């Protein structure tokens, strides 16, 4: 009896871990691609995820303006051009209704890259902390990312991504904002990213 009890516990843990890993495959596949060849000394992951609602709202705005050729959101701030919109208006509304404030913080087991270091927002956004790293000659960055959301078939996913240099804050990454992903041949690939109309 005792033996079976341990088997169940192990199964629960295994199932739980694998489920979590699958959910974050989309983020990890993205990071593998995004950081491929990128030179860095440290990447600080902000453990508090970015806001899911803001992610969806940015997608929604882009969706509404997708056919407006005078919209600089569609002509400038979505890149590359997005031809597959995984969520229509109705689905966007469903997404927004079902979104819950996802308070689960990022942790080491969520990422494949084991070199990431994890910091709370009040540290990684703190000026004193950033100043203390100034002049070290190291290339340090901050990774901020939201939890992903998926379509019903789990073919498409969205999440918000913001990757910046630790002290000066500029973004050296190719993508920023709401990232639209698609699963192709069991691997997630970037379709596009939708940015806020902001110059840094």
């Amino acid at each position: 009896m005792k033996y079976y009890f341990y088997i169940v516990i192990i199964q629960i843990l295994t199932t739980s871990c694998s489920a979590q890993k699958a959910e974050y495959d989309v983020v990890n596949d993205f990071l593998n691609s995004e950081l491929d060849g990128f030179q860095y000394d440290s990447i600080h992951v902000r453990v508090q995820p970015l806001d899911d609602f803001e992610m969806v709202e940015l997608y929604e705005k882009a969706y509404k303006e997708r056919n407006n050729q005078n919209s600089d959101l569609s002509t400038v701030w979505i890149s590359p051009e997005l031809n597959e919109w995984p969520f229509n208006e109705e689905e966007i509304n469903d997404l927004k209704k079902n979104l819950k404030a996802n308070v689960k913080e990022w942790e080491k087991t969520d990422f494949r890259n084991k070199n990431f270091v994890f910091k709370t927002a009040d540290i990684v956004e703190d000026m004193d902390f950033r100043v203390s790293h100034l002049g070290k000659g190291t290339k340090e960055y901050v990774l901020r990312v939201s939890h992903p959301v998926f379509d019903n078939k789990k073919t498409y996913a969205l999440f918000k991504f913001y990757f910046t240099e630790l002290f000066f804050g500029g973004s050296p990454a190719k993508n920023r904002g709401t990232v639209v992903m698609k699963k192709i041949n069991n691997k997630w690939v970037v379709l596009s990213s939708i940015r806020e109309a902001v110059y840094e």
Partner: protein
Amino acid sequence: MKIITNHKLRLLFLLPLVFLVFNCQKDDTPDDKVINQEETIQKIVTLDELRGLPQMAGRFSITKKDKDTLTKLYSAKYNFSIDLGRVMITQKGDYHSLSFPVIRKVPSGKLENLFLHPYNGGYLPYLMRYNFDAKDLLNLENGKEVDNILTKTEVIPLEDFDINNLGLKMETFGDRGGFGYSGIYWDGNNCWVFDSIVGVDADTGLLVLQFALYTGADCKPPTGDGSDTGLGPHYFMLVDLRSELGSSGSGGASSGGGSSGGPGVGTVWNPGGSSNPGNGSNPGFGNPLNGNPVIGVIGNELSAKSANAIEIEDEITSQNLDECSAAVLEQLKILTDKDIAKIITKLDANPSPYKLDIETQQNATFSNPAITTRRQNSSGQAIRFDYVMKLNPDYFGESTPDNPTKANKLFRATILIHEIIHAYFMSLIDDVATGVPGSVETKAAAFDAYVTKTFGPNSDASAHEVMAIKYVDIMARAIQEYNTGLPVQGMPEQVYIDLAWGGLSTAPVFDTTDVLTAEDRIRIRNRYGAESVNRPVEDQEPIGEPCK
């Protein structure tokens, strides 16, 4: 005045390749540029080179110190100044001509040059007035030829123009040695020595001279070799040369050369002399370029400041800006050579007017020193040509004893200039979106980032790439002028180039450009960081003035 419009002039203008020097980057670099592979050469000459020309016969004989500040001389008769800091010589065989930028207190709205054409061992002076539109000015800026230049040019002989006495007549003080750059002046109480010509006062049009109080018992003039003693603080005074020269005529003025070198034998600055009626009948004047088919056109600083750019500058508001940053912004608006309007004009000869509000953003959700974005209406829709620059209080705001590492004024100026250029990029997007005529062809040419998808997948990165390619120099000039108070002569100093690059240091282009070495990148980041927190970073000491 006589306006020459004969057909010979057509040929004269068709032959030359007009090399247009419009900005200090080109203006101040004595860099020869062969514009005709056979024989025509144009370049910007230094003051020493100018004085060395035989026809100049020692004119502009000024002290070394003066050369750092003397850039403008004023003509009372014609009520304009010329800029000695940016003189173009055009040479072809034994022939050469000189083109000086003309600066007016009240802008004429047209590009003008003082054109000196060799004649009888001296020069004949002409005013060349170019009726260039925005596209022409853009071509000038890019070193391209101006279409149909003949139809846009007036050639006006300058009767009684005497360059030898520009801004040199001075009678306010009694003097002991005759006015010259080495004279001593007694005002009844103190002894003074002439120090330098600062320029023309923008508000009054008066020449601004700087004198040094001389307290030596002998009141001997300084030698300028460093052995002088007793020089007190410098003082400024204004001399209204217009009234003096206007009443005495050029004859009186021409005798005042004093130690500045005199007119020189055989020099024809004023072919008719003071007795000449000056109505164009003087046989000394004619086609200034007859037989000499070359001419140089040089931009003046007023032509580099479009009305729209001035309007944009006026529309930059800062109601919610911290006090120190607001003061920096106001200073940026009044720089002599690279104020905000001129920077914008440099980017675009005819920018669309837009609004830009700059505010210190409390509880900023971004970690950058600043961002530039659009203003939105109550429905969340972006408003065209209406932008907001948000400054991060981590860097901006006031320094306190508990929080002393706020950005100094130099860093704030750097960020403001950087973001103002971003706002301009936003306006280009709006130009295209709203169908501003020519925006796709001309604006996109100026803003390569608009075709962002050819640059890369990141508009922000593309904008920074364009900045790196095109605008580091102008940013550096503006930053240096802000910090030193002096327009940049020649190349900007490295520290200011580094600061201009600093704003791009997190963009992909910073790591990929072959303009920078690994050592450059480290120095730039440390410099940028040092000014941003106003404390040393590695071997870089901040040079900016703290915000207190």
